[in-house]
């Protein structure tokens, strides 16, 4: 990219309709001249309101100026125009992370990574968000030291910090117990077939593994985030009363979903050979264990 502001400015003046505003605004942003960058990006956006890159760049500058809401709108607009826009997913991932919504943060970062699998910075960001979503050994002494910035969404450099990260895990840290070992102790599948989530799709305990033994808990958790709400909605609107369970028979395994408490969901997964009826019983026993555990740690 040509990074000479003067040359780019002259080029833009010569041809105000050209896309060179993107380069110019980006150079200004990198130099920290955010007001100038914003002016250039905004006028380019006015000319090209259907250009996802223009929305994403505008949003990035807003984010760096501390306007999180404006940045959110901008990145959402970019995604509306181009659903796989990498920078927009990356930016939203950061905003969600900052807001403490780790499930959504992870989803956006993973989308971004699909478009740029070789991006090491992005991979590192995903790892850090994942790490934040599992029980931390001890809470950070100064939250400010934890300013993780999934580069290049850089507001963290400017002192914007994650505010409410991983609240469920603070519970573990305080009680000093290891959730995974106690939660489903004595139950079959405690480490690879039972997963307890909060209403935002964050893992509270348990784990799921795929057939290769890889831990797929977070990916499944992210997908299940809205399921209990959706199940409740469907049951209510279809006159089925309050929802009690959701059974899913699949090609390679069966799953069973129940809500041990109003704001948690328990997923039980077993081999296809386990009949649906027995799966329901296993799930009910695990739900009882989860309720006891939740009462203990609360």
């Amino acid at each position, binding site marked *: 990219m040509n990074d000479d502001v003067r040359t780019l400015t002259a080029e833009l003046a010569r041809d105000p309709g050209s896309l060179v505003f993107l380069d110019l605004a980006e150079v200004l942003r990198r130099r920290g001249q955010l007001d100038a960058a914003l002016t250039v990006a905004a006028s380019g956006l*006015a000319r090209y*309101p259907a250009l996802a890159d223009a929305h994403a760049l505008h949003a990035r500058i807003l984010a760096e100026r501390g306007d999180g809401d404006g940045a959110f709108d901008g990145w959402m607009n970019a995604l509306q125009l181009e659903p796989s826009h990498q920078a927009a997913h990356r930016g939203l991932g950061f905003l969600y992370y900052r807001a403490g919504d780790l499930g959504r943060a992870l989803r956006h970062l993973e989308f971004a990574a699909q478009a740029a699998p070789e991006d090491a910075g992005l991979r590192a960001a995903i790892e850090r968000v994942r790490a934040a979503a599992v029980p931390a050994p001890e809470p950070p002494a100064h939250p400010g030291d934890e300013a993780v910035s999934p580069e290049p969404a850089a507001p963290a450099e400017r002192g914007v910090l994650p505010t409410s990260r991983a609240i469920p895990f603070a519970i573990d840290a305080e009680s000093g117990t290891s959730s995974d070992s106690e939660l489903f102790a004595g139950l079959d599948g405690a480490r690879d077939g039972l997963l307890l989530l909060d209403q935002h799709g964050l893992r509270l305990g348990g784990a799921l593994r795929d057939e290769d033994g890889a831990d797929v808990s977070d990916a499944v958790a992210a997908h299940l985030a809205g399921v209990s709400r959706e199940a409740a909605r469907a049951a209510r609107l279809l006159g089925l009363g309050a929802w009690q369970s959701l059974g899913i028979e699949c090609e390679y395994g069966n799953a069973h979903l129940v809500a041990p408490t109003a704001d948690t969901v328990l997923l039980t997964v077993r081999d296809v050979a386990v009949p649906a009826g027995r799966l329901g019983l296993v799930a009910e026993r695990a739900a009882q264990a989860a309720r006891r555990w939740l009462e203990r740690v609360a």
Partner: protein
Amino acid sequence: MSLVNFTAREITCKIVYYGPGRSGKTTNLQYVFGRVPETRRGRMVSLATHGDRTLFFDFLPIELGSISGFTTRFQLYTVPGQSYYNATRKLVLQGADGVVFVADSQARRFDDNIESLQNLQENLLEQGVDVRQMPIVFQYNKQDLPRDLVLARADLDEALNFRGVESFAADALHGSGVFETLKGISELVLRKLAVGGPAA
């Protein structure tokens, strides 16, 4: 009908450029589009045929700025002039706050102007709007053409402007009279709001 938002202090008015085919309605909007800074206008939407004749309407939103503490926006529409497009003309006219009648000053288009004006009255009447209650100004376009081809403003006033409203001589292609016309209709439309029009 104009929308007024008292909470956000915003006014939005709809102004329709009406007139016979090829009298210069779209040209008026194009000139405005070219002169108004980008930050104060939206995209110009033109639903036109290949020959650039307006098929449904042209649309241009512009932001005037603050007037009496209200952020004021105008939505400028044109209608297709050709007589066979009356159905779409009626649709565009719905809810108009003001009308600019763009007449073609050429003597040979005299009858077309009369016919279009009658058509405007009929269409308004059909929507239950008395043309006498509708803010309207006249623009006599193409006054830059040779003298012997065009009618003078006084002659056109006599033939079309029987209500004696404001009228403007114009050459929309080069911009003369475009601004004055828009200013004229803006005043009329906003004056109606100043004395208390019907609610949104």
